Each structure stands twice: as structure tokens, then as C-alpha cells.
């Protein structure tokens, strides 16, 4: 029977992995490191619990107005030349992507981390069709070399040791073995660098769709998604429809929360918002940008009022990281795109309840997931609801009978008494066969001693005691049996879809959303800047706090007395790092520091550049829009930062900023750029914190995974 397969595979993988003590130890160690980092980052927030509440209210508002948000998103994105596609299922999504690739005559594709593409098995189909597809997130790249799906949807190769990765590289890339994680990262960097420069198309996912501006926001540490969005001529982003946030300013709350919950960082290295392909006057970026909005059963989940909040998920992975089931069976056992508690909740909705209900059963319902979820999804209660729904849909005859007998007898004193007497009588006999293949309780006794029944039960003790107040027992209610609570099913049936066949997928998805949400009319919710400020990390003293936060994430920061001092510092950096050639764009600050200093030779990227020449430069020097003291971040756009690639392709990124550009916090940063660009957004806005980094190899932080190895900020 086909439906048995996922469960039997799950059971055999879980048996194998729970017996692999080395594996269990590695995952536990990794997760404790995560736990310590996350606890520290949560501590930076003034009120983490209130932040969770704000985030969940924002997401609830967004999801309950999904229809309007998606239409607004489409309109805003289209206005800037982005092509928005709607895919009702995997097949349609693949078809859309294939037709773009064919029309653009694409041969070589690079992909930054895209979980939705795992969901639609895109790589398999692309490779079978003869495309050359390369994953460029370090962890995904390693898993691709292993021909294995991601182990954890945030940390794809967390189950591998350094030695296993070294052996893999030795076998596949013919490199010398090493036990140095930096050397391993640099092997991947050198190999992947070339592919960014030569790929025809880049495929990305997105963490958020910003309805108000028609942007997608991508969070990453390595810089691979930034390079993917900067260099190939065609960019395709495959995004689930539930990723919507109403306002760009919502990012001020969600970005630090995603980082904290996801990896335990105060903020992730690159948080980039894309607003279209290359815009008029811009020097780089793709000519064409396609966004594929993916339904693929999300509207069915939306139609379930009990579990709709599972669509609030921001895929931080926190629920996996705290889950004792995940920590003991690992990510591979699940056999799903999304592992851990969120995967166990949503996979039955995405891929069929009967085939995947065992994942909801395989939980002790400890609730650690729900307690940690930054958007307050009621995860473990949803596991219970999935169990109930599975039974209502197709009860197991034997188990159902057992529970009926249980229900009828457990609170009937006579039956209870006879049952316990029999059990007590059977106990000595059971001891003879305990843990043997004859033992009906072997599932317990194989590893655990059977609990002994007490010689005198509490009830016996109470009855013989003859004290205390006895009230006459009342007969149990002979029960008005009520029909099982009907699961609201407003999702369009297949027949309906047949009737409405002429509908295009866009209209079909929007109609599904409208029907799914017909039971609810909540008010939209927008967290104010003041509400966000009250929960986000406090800011008191701008310069010292910026310095501390930037240096914490390994950026180098120099507060210079004046322009002359900044100029001297830049010259000192050039000598210290032995820069042979630098690249910069024209601007007031770069003119003052670079042009007038006689740096020679330098590459001026203002009117465009040769990507190979830019890649060979030792440093890219840019201006920015603002510095954010709260997180130690640099806010720059394609306009202020000289395009998409200058700040990410050279090995060293140097940012020049004036003191009045230093702002207190993220809400202030988003307010500034909205005022500055609100009517004409540059195609890229990015929040950079520290140099490019990865923790994909045994959670050891290595700088310069793909983007700059160094980030220096000069302020005067």
C-alpha cells in the first residue's frame, strides 16, 4: 500500500538514527550552541515576549488580508518591471520557470537557498532537462554534492563533521584533505565565485513579500543570494504566497526576530530587499526579474481556521532547534521538505493527511516548539488536531475499538476494579516473558523496566482508611453523543475547480483565498514605530553602541575626528592590506576620500563595470544611506552604494559615512529610506551587518563565505 511507505521509512530511519550515538551527540552539541546564542540575542531585546506578540499579530493581520496584500504586491512589483506569475501547484510552478529559462536561452543556473524549490523538486526536473544547476549556499552546495536533500531547512548540513566534508570535497572536487573549516569554506568560495560571473540565471526564494512596495526581502549570511541577485541577466524568485508582510517598516521587527530565533544572531549579515530588475539609471542587476507566487496547497491550509496560523511561519527553524524529537532522530528521518514540528504540522496539509499523519503522532506533545515560536504558532496543539482529523477521516478499526472499550470502562468502578485485579494477577507471569519476543508490552520493555503495580493501590488505601468525606458516587451521564466537530472545509473541491476551469491560476488562487477566509473578518494590524521601539534592543549612546554592535559581528569600525583623519585612515588601510586596485563609485564622500587621494589605479563603476575586473579589485569603497546603532548595520541602496555588486563582489567592503548618518534604530532607518526613496525605489536596499559569514561547517563561524571577507566602516 502506497500510504505505508512514508511511515515505514520514517520508522526505519528513526530507529537507525536514534541508535547512532555519534549523530545524536553532534546534533545535541550543535543545538546547545544555538540555544546559548539565541538566549543571548533574546536578551538584547527589551521585551522578547511582547515582540513575539507583535510579530504574531502582524502576521495574523497579513494572512487574514492575504487577497488584498497579494494584489497590491503584484501591482507594485509590476509597476517597476517585475513579472509576477501565479502557480497553483508544483507542476505549474515548474512549467513557468521552464518557459522563462527556455525563452531566455539559459544554460547555467545558480540557486541561492530556496526551500520552495525543494518543495517542487525543481533541481531534479532542471537536471533531467539538461540544465546545469548549482546550489550556492555553502550548506546546500555540500548537500548537492552529497546528492541529499537539506537536513535542516536553515542549517542544511549540520549533521556532517568537518572530516566528512573534507572527504566529500576530496572525492568530488579533488582537493587535498584538511581539518581547517576556513580552508574548506575557501575551497567552496573559489569554486563558486566563477559560477556567479558566468551563470545565465539566478533562482532565489524570499523570506518576505512586502505588499506596500512590491519588494521581496531575502535574509542570508553568506552573500550568495546577493551575488545571485546582482550578476546573472535573469532572476527568478519562487515564493510561497503566505510570505506577505504589509509594510516595509515591518522588517524593523521581523529581521532581528528572524535572526535571533533562527541562528541566535542579533541580526543576519545581509537583509536585502529587491524592488524590480535593473531600473533606469542603475548600472547592474538582472534585465528580467520574475516572481513566481506559489500556492501548492497553502490555500487549503488557509481554509482550516484551527491551523491557519501555521501560515504565519517565517521558517526560522527555531522549533526544530528546540525539538527533542528532531534532536534524536535528525532531519533526514522526516522525509519532508520542512522538518521538525512545523514540518509535522504542515506536511499533512501539503502532501496528504493519511500519508503523513505519523509525523503528528510522533511527538510527545511537549510544547517546546510552541513556547519558542517567534510568531506564536500553536504548533503542538496542531499536532493534536491533525491526529484527530486523521481519525475522523479514517479511524483505525482495532485502535478505535480499544479506545471505545477504554472510554466505557475506565471511569466505571466495577470494570476498573476487575481490570486492575487481572493486571495484578498477570504481573508475575509477565515478568517471565518481559522484553522477550513473546511480550505484548515489548515496545516498552525492550528498553525500559515494566513499572510494578503497587501492592496496595491508592483507591484500596483510601477505602480501608475510612476517614475523610465520602460523597455518593453519581452514575456517569448516559451521554448525549454529539456529532464530531466538523472540520470546516471551505476549500474549493476538485469538481468546483473543474467547473471553473477557465479561471487563470491568478484568479483561481485569489478565489481560493477569498473562500478560505470567508469565515473571518479581522481588522488589519500594524505595529507602530513606538511599539517596535519598546520591544527592540534599547539604544542610548549612538557611537559606542554602533561600534560595539558592529565589532560584535566582526566589522572594523573607525570613528575619525574629521575628513582629513578619515583620509589618513583609508590610506593606512590601503597600505596595511596591500590593495593593488580598488573600485568605487562617484559621490560626495568617495570623491573627497578616494579621488583626491590619488589612489591609482582605481575602477570607477559609476557608469558600469566589467564584472571580472570588479571581482579582481581588492576593495570596493561605497557610501551608504545610514548606519544603525541598534544593530551595528549599514543601510545602503543601489543608488547610495554604487549598484548591486560593488559592495559584495570585492574581498573588502569599505563604507564611508558622516556622523549625521548614524541613526539610533531600525524603525528610524526604515523611516529615512521611505522618505528618501518612497516614490522611486532603487532596485536594491540592503542592510549589511559585518562581513559575509557562514556557520555551515560544525557551527564554526568563518568569514568571507561568498561576499567580502572584511567590512570596514569609516565615520567622521
Amino acid at each position, binding site marked *: 500500500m502506497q500510504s505505508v511507505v512514508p511511515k515505514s521509512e520514517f520508522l526505519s530511519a528513526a530507529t537507525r538514527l536514534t541508535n547512532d550515538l555519534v549523530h545524536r551527540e553532534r546534533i545535541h552539541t550543535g543545538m546547545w550552541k544555538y540555544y546559548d546564542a539565541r538566549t543571548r540575542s533574546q536578551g538584547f531585546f527589551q521585551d522578547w515576549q511582547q515582540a513575539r506578540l507583535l510579530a504574531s499579530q502582524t502576521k495574523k493581520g497579513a494572512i487574514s488580508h492575504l487577497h488584498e496584500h497579494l494584489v497590491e504586491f503584484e501591482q507594485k512589483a509590476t509597476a517597476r518591471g517585475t513579472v509576477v506569475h501565479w502557480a497553483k501547484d508544483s507542476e505549474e510552478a515548474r512549467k513557468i520557470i521552464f518557459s522563462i529559462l527556455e525563452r531566455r536561452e539559459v544554460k547555467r543556473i545558480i540557486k541561492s537557498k530556496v526551500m520552495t524549490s525543494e518543495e517542487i523538486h525543481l533541481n531534479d526536473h532542471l537536471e533531467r532537462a539538461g540544465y546545469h544547476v548549482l546550489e550556492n549556499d555553502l550548506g546546500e552546495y555540500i548537500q548537492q554534492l552529497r546528492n541529499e536533500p537539506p537536513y535542516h531547512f536553515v542549517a542544511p548540513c549540520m549533521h556532517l563533521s568537518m572530516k566528512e566534508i573534507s572527504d566529500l570535497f576530496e572525492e568530488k572536487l579533488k582537493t587535498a584533505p584538511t581539518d581547517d573549516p576556513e580552508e574548506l569554506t575557501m575551497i567552496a568560495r573559489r569554486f563558486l565565485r566563477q559560477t556567479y560571473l558566468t551563470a545565465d540565471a539566478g533562482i532565489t526564494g524570499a523570506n518576505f513579500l512586502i505588499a506596500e512596495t512590491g519588494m521581496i526581502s531575502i535574509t542570508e549570511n553568506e552573500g550568495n543570494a546577493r551575488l545571485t541577485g546582482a550578476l546573472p541577466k535573469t532572476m527568478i524568485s519562487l515564493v510561497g504566497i503566505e510570505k506577505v508582510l504589509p509594510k516595509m517598516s515591518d522588517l524593523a521587527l521581523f529581521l532581528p526576530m528572524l535572526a535571533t530565533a533562527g541562528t541566535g544572531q542579533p541580526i543576519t549579515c545581509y537583509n536585502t530587499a529587491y524592488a524590480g530588475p535593473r531600473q533606469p539609471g542603475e548600472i547592474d542587476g538582472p534585465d528580467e526579474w520574475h516572481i513566481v507566487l506559489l500556492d501548492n496547497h497553502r490555500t487549503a491550509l488557509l481554509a482550516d481556521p484551527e491551523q491557519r496560523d501555521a501560515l504565519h511561519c517565517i521558517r526560522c527553524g527555531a522549533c526544530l532547534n528546540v525539538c*527533542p524529537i528532531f534532536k534524536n532522530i535528525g532531519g533526514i528521518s522526516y522525509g519532508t521538505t520542512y522538518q521538525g514540528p512545523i514540518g509535522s504540522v504542515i506536511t499533512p496539509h501539503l502532501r496528504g493527511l493519511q500519508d503523513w499523519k505519523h509525523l503528528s503522532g510522533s511527538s*510527545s506533545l511537549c510544547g517546546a516548539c510552541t513556547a519558542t515560536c517567534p510568531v506564536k504558532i500553536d504548533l503542538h496543539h496542531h499536532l493534536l488536531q491533525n491526529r484527530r482529523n486523521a481519525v475522523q477521516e479514517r479511524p483505525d478499526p482495532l485502535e478505535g475499538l480499544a479506545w471505545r472499550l477504554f472510554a466505557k470502562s475506565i471511569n466505571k468502578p466495577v470494570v476498573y476494579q476487575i481490570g486492575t485485579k487481572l493486571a495484578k494477577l498477570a504481573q508475575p507471569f509477565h515478568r517471565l516473558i518481559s522484553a522477550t519476543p513473546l511480550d505484548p508490552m515489548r515496545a516498552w520493555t525492550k528498553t525500559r523496566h515494566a513499572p510494578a503495580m503497587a501492592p496496595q493501590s491508592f483507591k484500596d488505601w483510601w*477505602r480501608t482508611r475510612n476517614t475523610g*468525606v465520602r460523597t455518593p458516587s453519581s452514575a456517569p451521564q448516559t*451521554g448525549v453523543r454529539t456529532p464530531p466537530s466538523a472540520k470546516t472545509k471551505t476549500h474549493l473541491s476538485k469538481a468546483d475547480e473543474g467547473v471553473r476551469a477557465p479561471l487563470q491560476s491568478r484568479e483561481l488562487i485569489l478565489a481560493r483565498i477569498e473562500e478560505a477566509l470567508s469565515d473571518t473578518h479581522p481588522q488589519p494590524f500594524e505595529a507602530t514605530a513606538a511599539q517596535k521601539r519598546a520591544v527592540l534592543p534599547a539604544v542610548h549612546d549612538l557611537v559606542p553602541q554602533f561600534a560595539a554592535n558592529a565589532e560584535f559581528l566582526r566589522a572594523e569600525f573607525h570613528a575619525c575626528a574629521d575628513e582629513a583623519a578619515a583620509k589618513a585612515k583609508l590610506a593606512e588601510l590601503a597600505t596595511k592590506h596591500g590593495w593593488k586596485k580598488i573600485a568605487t563609485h562617484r559621490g560626495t564622500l568617495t570623491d573627497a576620500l578616494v579621488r583626491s587621494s590619488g589612489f591609482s589605479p582605481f575602477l570607477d563603476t559609476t557608469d558600469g563595470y566589467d564584472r571580472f575586473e570588479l571581482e579582481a579589485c581588492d576593495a570596493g569603497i561605497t557610501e551608504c544611506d545610514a548606519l544603525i546603532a541598534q544593530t551595528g548595520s549599514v543601510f545602503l541602496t543601489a543608488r547610495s552604494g554604487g549598484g548591486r555588486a560593488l559592495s559584495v563582489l570585492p574581498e573588502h567592503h569599505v563604507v564611508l559615512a558622516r556622523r549625521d548618518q548614524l541613526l539610533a534604530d531600525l524603525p528610524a532607518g526604515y523611516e529615512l529610506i521611505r522618505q528618501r526613496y518612497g516614490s522611486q525605489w532603487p532596485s536594491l536596499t540592503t542592510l549589511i551587518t559585518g562581513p559575509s559569514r557562514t556557520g555551515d561547517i560544525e557551527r564554526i563561524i568563518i568569514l568571507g563565505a561568498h561576499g567580502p571577507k572584511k567590512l570596514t566602516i569609516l565615520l567622521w
Partner: protein
Amino acid sequence: MLITLFIPCFVDLISPQAGISIVNILEGLGHQIDYPDELGCCGQPPFNAGYWDEAREAARPVLQRLRDSEAVVIASGSCGAMSKVFYKELFHGQPEEAEANALSAKCWEFTDFLVNKLGVTDLGASFPHKVTYHDGCHGLRELNLKKPARQLLEKVRGLQLVEMKEAETCCGFGGTFSTKFPMISTAMGEVKCASARDTNAEYLVSGDSSCLMHLQGLLTAQRQPLKTIHIAEVLTSRI
């Protein structure tokens, strides 16, 4: 106060001493105990298995019998969560919904009742041993009971509480989960036992007999000297 005591099946049959200790403590504080000895189970097992009709059938006598009680004390965080939190979900939209809500409001897990209802933390107990405490998941996360047990243990003479790293991690019992997915349940229990052992405690204390039954089963099978004990038994200990 007339306190209705709910004794779950596994306390009744496997660790009655926990129930007896609770009776002694509450009576010692001058309260009267009403024990409905016809009740054996709150209905959680079929509820967790997805058989909610059957769970309702098992739970109805409980609702009915406890309808007129002034306060209900439950000798387990897990059954406490069932009665206090999950009945509301189980009976949502059912004729008994109001009754389930009323029961929820007057249900107390034992340590919560002592500390937060009666305002008692010092019971004059002495237990000169090094112990570590296991937070049962339902008590910890459904009922938010991190503190009461520790406030009680703090006042026990001679007792040294050493917190284990995995104090808040599930022991792996999870009811029928322990036999439907025994390999995962066992692995989780092993993690818990190892963490408890790392504290060099003599006793592993908890407010949940079901977790302790699971952990004791593992400890005995592995011939570990660490012993499990219900917090009520610690609180009735005297030298």
C-alpha cells in the same frame, strides 16, 4: 476547605504513595478531602491518540462528578493540563462546554495549589539529599509552573537542589507515544537520565508520576542508582 482530589490511574496503581502524601499534606494543613474513587482517568490517552469522541465519553463522568466541587487538586501536571486546558478544546462547541470551562477555573495542579492558592511553601519537611528536578512538559508549558515546585523544595531541610541542564527537556514519555515510537521515546529518556546523572543527584524529583514511571523504567533497566520520587513524597519526609 473541602478539596476534591483527582488521582490519575497511574498514581493509583503504580505510585499510590504520591497520592497518599498529598492527602496527608492537605489534611495536615487542616483541609478536608473529597475523593471520588469511582474516577480513574481524565481521558487524556484517547484524546492524544486522536479519538476525541472516546475521550469525551471518558471525560464526561469526570466533568459531572467534579461539577459541584469547590476546588479540585490533581496529582499530576499532565492530567492537570488535560482538565484545565485541553477539556476546553475537547468540549468546544459541545453541550458540556460551559461545564468544562467551569472546571478549568477551579482545577489546580498540586504544587500550584499549595503555593499559589493556599500560600504555603514550608511544610516542615526534611530530606537530607541532593536532588534534581524534572519539569513535566504539561505543567511547565501548559500551566506555566516553573516556580512552585522550587519554592517548596527550597524550604525542605537538608535538601540540596542541583538543576540539570536538560531540566525543561521532555522525558520522552508522552503516553502512547512511548510505545508507538519506542526508539524515539527511549532516546529522549536517555538524554534526560544522562543530564540528571551529570548533577550527581541521589534523587530525580518531579510532580508528574507518569514521567517518573518512564524514567524509573529506564534507570532500572540500565541499573542506574539514581532514584525517582514524587515531590509530594519529598514534602512529607521527616528525619
